[in-house]
């Protein structure tokens, strides 16, 4: 089972990233669950969700220790870095996080300037897709070609074909190397 926390500002496509991950998991024949953080949330505040993808049945939707923490800003790291398992993967958006920031020494940190990537490719809402490219390149959760195929399929299924998403995804993959 892979347990993933996605977190960032509201509007950065955090919940969409979570949905894309469970969509790909479902299409991969796996069991999936997505648990939103809900409550008295504030506009412009943090957004986060928990995602589990497993070949086995999934018990609780709640994550105690994550395999992957997918962050899009600094407050998300403040809040969720501590929830990573030792050896877990932290994804960091260096467009919005200080380059000199220090991290736990028992986790793997992969950094990429995904907000800049999305802006350069004139797809400013595609930073989350670029980060999914980073995720695909730095983990063995999904074959990257399968994942981008499912991302495209998800949007096309909703009548939205966004070619720039694939460019963001591939640029994110490159940046992760």
């Amino acid at each position: 089972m892979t347990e993933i926390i996605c977190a960032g500002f509201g509007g950065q496509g955090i919940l969409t990233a979570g949905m894309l991950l469970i969509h790909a998991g479902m299409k991969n024949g796996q069991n999936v669950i997505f648990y939103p953080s809900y409550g008295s949330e504030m506009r412009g505040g943090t957004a986060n969700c928990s995602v589990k993808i497993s070949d086995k049945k999934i018990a609780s939707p709640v994550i105690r220790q994550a395999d992957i923490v997918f962050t899009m800003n600094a407050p998300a790291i403040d809040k969720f870095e501590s929830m990573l398992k030792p050896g877990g993967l932290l994804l960091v958006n260096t467009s919005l996080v200080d380059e000199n920031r220090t991290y736990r020494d028992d986790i793997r940190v992969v950094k990429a300037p995904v907000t800049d990537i999305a802006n350069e490719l004139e797809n400013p809402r595609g930073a989350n897709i670029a980060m999914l490219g980073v995720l695909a390149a730095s983990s063995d959760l999904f074959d990257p070609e399968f994942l981008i195929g499912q991302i495209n399929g998800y949007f096309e299924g909703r009548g939205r074909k966004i070619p720039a998403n694939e460019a963001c995804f591939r640029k994110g993959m490159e940046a992760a190397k």
Partner: protein
Amino acid sequence: MSERVLMKGNEALAEAALRAGCRFFAGYPITPQTEILEYLSWRMDEVGGSYTQAESELAAVNMVYGASSGGARALTTSSGPGFSLKQEGISYLCGADLPAVIVNVMRIGSGLGNIFQGQGDYWQMTRGGGHGDYRTIVLAPNSAQENADLMVLAFDLAEKYRHPVLIASDAAIGQSIEAVELPEFRDHDLNKYDWPVRGAKADEPIRTVKNVFYSMGDAYEDYLRDKYAQIEAEEQRWESIQVEDAELVLVAFGISSRVCEEAVEGARAKGLKVGLIRPITLWPFPVKAFEKAVNAKAFLTNEMNLLGQTMDDIRLATGCRVPVYHSGSIFAITDTNDLIVRIEEVMEEVKGGGQ
């Protein structure tokens, strides 16, 4: 077999209601069940049904009473305080022998409580909840898939017994998104039965919907006894996992049962003989499931309440032969590893002479 789709538990429940032939909904928003209203507010229109956001929960349940009197498959949903407000209407539905489905997406606490998941309404839902001498069938789904499947069953059972059926979902199931295979669409014929007040022909007896107590006289007692006895005999539903050789049997419904299933696997891997009984009907409580627990030296419930509300029913089902323990918090879904620790503690205590 239809394709699996991603749906929030609340949405799966709402869509399944339509597919079961429900064409009347009345409700009032309250977290964590509001997605049901949100979904049906546009979707009910697409299938040609009637959707009303009522002025209150009490109004909504009475609108359901009216729609059901006319033979419609009618639904209302709520949570916590809103579900309490429906109790008078549920009692009246029972008094008038009317089928209806009422959903409680359980949340934490008495009073206002809060919007997070809870399982504190077990007693309220299984003991009647309103005034008078009644109980209702209560179905407890543990996934978005079962939110859909049990919704269809709920309407079927409600009509079979002309009796309201409750669904005890919770915030974790309602808010989570999972892959769901939706049931096929079924048509509901408003003229299927001879009792709805849809106008009687000249040569037919007048149709009325009223408290059955007034119309049946002395036969009322036998009628009621038989109805409840038949439900208890025929409608117990449960899932058993490795119960036969288990020395400790977990008992849990809803989202907690999924943690228990994982804990059974973890405990078995440690060589502990642990099993699980998952009630799917909370009433009638699946007494029959406990007949197979012949090696159980104790039972351990896991539920998101502090008073261990299922414990009494387990004691009754087992004649108090062995001790019953409780685990669970009102604030969180129990973590599987914590539950395994509790299992080990209980098994140690039972070995040392019990409670």
